[in-house]
C-alpha cells in the first residue's frame, strides 16, 4: 500500500537535485537492504516511509534558510530559483564566519563543548567527562578524514585482487558465511541516521549562546544560521555522485572520530559545525560497539548522504516519545534499544501507541540502570 505520493516537497522541491530525488525513490540495492531492516513500509513496491521523512527534513531545511535570510518561502524561491543561485550567499557567509572567529578559536572551542554538555540530554555524558571517563577533543580545524573510506574505494579494494586472491575471494563468497550481519547493519544504519538527525538539530544550538557570540561579532548568529541551513540544503541540492576520497577531504567542513573507547576527536571549520561534530561523536561513541570491526569497516562516507537527508525527522519522531523530564536518559535509551532486534527499532520508527509503549519501557529501564549505577558498586549486572 502506498501511503502518499512519492516525495512531497514545497515549491516542487526546486532545491533538490533530480538525481537525489531519483536516489531516494529508487535506492540502490545495497542501501535498500540496510534500511529495509529499520524502516516500516519499505519494500520493493513501497518507499513511502523514506520519502515522507526525507520530504519533512527537506521542508524544515528550506524553512530555516528562508528564516535566516529574512524571506518568506515564496520570496526565497523567487529570488533564488535554483540551488546554484543560493550557493554564493551560503559560501560568502561561511567565509565571513571564519574571519569573525579567527581571533577567538580557543574560547569558541571550549564554548562548543560546554554548550553541548549543558544540554539535559547530555547530563550523564557531562558527568563522565568530569570524572575523566570520556575526553572530548574539539578543535576549530581542518577536518581529518584520513581513516575514512568511500564506496568507490571499497569497490576498488575488491577490484584490485590478484588472480589467486580472486579465487580465494570467490571461495570465501561461496563457502564462508560472510561475517556481516544484516541485522547489525540495519541497526548501525539506524544509529547513524539518528546521530545525523540529532546533530543537524544541534546545528542551531548557537542560539543558546547568542549573547556571547554577539560580543565577538553582532552578525555571527545570523551568519551561522545561513551556513547551517545551507549546509543541510546542500545535501539535497548537490548532484548524486560517486564520491572520491580527495573530493570528500576537500569538500568536508567537519569530521569526527572515536579514537578509542574514551576519546572523541571532533574537528569543525566553524562553531556550529564543531558543535554538530561533537554531537555526532557522542552518539557514534554510544553506538559503535554493537558492530564487529568488519561491519564498521564497510561504513562509507557515501552512506551519510541518505542518513543526513532523512535523519532529522527520524530523530524528532524518536525524541517526541520521551518526556522533557526524561531527556537525560536518552543516551541510555539509545544504547538499550540498539541491543534489541531491528524489528523493535522498526516499531519505534512507525510511531503510534505501540512505539510509545516500547519507549516507556525503555525509559523505565534506563532510569533503573542509571540509578543502579549511582547506588550500586556493581552496575554491570543490572542492565
Amino acid at each position: 500500500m502506498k501511503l502518499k505520493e512519492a516525495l512531497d516537497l514545497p515549491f516542487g522541491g526546486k532545491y533538490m537535485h533530480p538525481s537525489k530525488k531519483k536516489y531516494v525513490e529508487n535506492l540502490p540495492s545495497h542501501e535498500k537492504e540496510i534500511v529495509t531492516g529499520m524502516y516500516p513500509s519499505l519494500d520493493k513496491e513501497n518507499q513511502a516511509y523514506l520519502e515522507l521523512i526525507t520530504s519533512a527534513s527537506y521542508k524544515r531545511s528550506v524553512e530555516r534558510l528562508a528564516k535566516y535570510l529574512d524571506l518568506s518561502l515564496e520570496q526565497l524561491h523567487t529570488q533564488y530559483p535554483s540551488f546554484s543561485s543560493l550557493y554564493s550567499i551560503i559560501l560568502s557567509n561561511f567565509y565571513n564566519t571564519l574571519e569573525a572567529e579567527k581571533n577567538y578559536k580557543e574560547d569558541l572551542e571550549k564554548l562548543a563543548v560546554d554548550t553541548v554538555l549543558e544540554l539535559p540530554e547530555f547530563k550523564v555524558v557531562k558527568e563522565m567527562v568530569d570524572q575523566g571517563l570520556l575526553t572530548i577533543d574539539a578543535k576549530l580545524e581542518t577536518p581529518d578524514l584520513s581513516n575514512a573510506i568511500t564506496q568507490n574505494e571499497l569497490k576498488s579494494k575488491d577490484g584490485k585482487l590478484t588472480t589467486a586472491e580472486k579465487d580465494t575471494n570467490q571461495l570465501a563468497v561461496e563457502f564462508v558465511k560472510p561475517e556481516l550481519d544484516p541485522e547489525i547493519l540495519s541497526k548501525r544504519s539506524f544509529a547513524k541516521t539518528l546521530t545525523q538527525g540529532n546533530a543537524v538539530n544541534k546545528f542551531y544550538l548557537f542560539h543558546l549562546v547568542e549573547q556571547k557570540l554577539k560580543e565577538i561579532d553582532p552578525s555571527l548568529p545570523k551568519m551561522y544560521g545561513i551556513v547551517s541551513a545551507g549546509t543541510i540544503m546542500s545535501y539535497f541540492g548537490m548532484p548524486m555522485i560517486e564520491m572520491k576520497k580527495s573530493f570528500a577531504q576537500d569538500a568536508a567542513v567537519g569530521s569526527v572520530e572515536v579514537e578509542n573507547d574514551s576519546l572523541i576527536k571532533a574537528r569543525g571549520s566553524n562553531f556550529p559545525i564543531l558543535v554538530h561534530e561533537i554531537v555526532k561523536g557522542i552518539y557514534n561513541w554510544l553506538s559503535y560497539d554493537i558492530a564487529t570491526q568488519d561491519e564498521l569497516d564497510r561504513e562509507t562516507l557515501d552512506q551519510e548522504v541518505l542518513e543526513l537527508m532523512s535523519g532529522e525527522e527520524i530523530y524528532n519522531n524518536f525524541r517526541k516519545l520521551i518526556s522533557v523530564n526524561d531527556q537525560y536518559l536518552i543516551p541510555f535509551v539509545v544504547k538499550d534499544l540498539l541491543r534489541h532486534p531491528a524489528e523493535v527499532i522498526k516499531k519505534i520508527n512507525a510511531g503510534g501507541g505501540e512505539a510509545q509503549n516500547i519507549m516507556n519501557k525503555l525509559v523505565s529501564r534506563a532510569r533503573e540502570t542509571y540509578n543502579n549505577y549511582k547506588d550500586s558498586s556493581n552496575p554491570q549486572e543490572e542492565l
Partner: protein
Amino acid sequence: MNDKFDELVNGLLKQTLFEAPAAPVEEPKVEPEVEPDIKPVPAPQKPTEPKRHPLQPTRPDVKPRPQASAQKAPISPSVEAYINARK
C-alpha cells in the same frame, strides 16, 4: 665430727656453685584490663573490576571509521568549481 661438717659444707658449696638455683617463683602478672577493640576487622578484599559506567563502550577492540560533515556542502572551492561546471 669435722668430717661430717666438711662434707656438709662441701655439699652446700657444690650445690651453690655448680647447680642452678631454683628459679624464683614469680607471682602471676595481672594484665590491665583493655577496652575491647570495636573496630570491625576489614573483610578480605575480593579483587573487583573497576566500576564501569553503563554508557561506556563494551568493545574497546573495535574502532569505527571517522564520519564527515557536509562532504557535499557548497562551501569548498572544489565543490564550487564542480557546481559551476555542471550549470
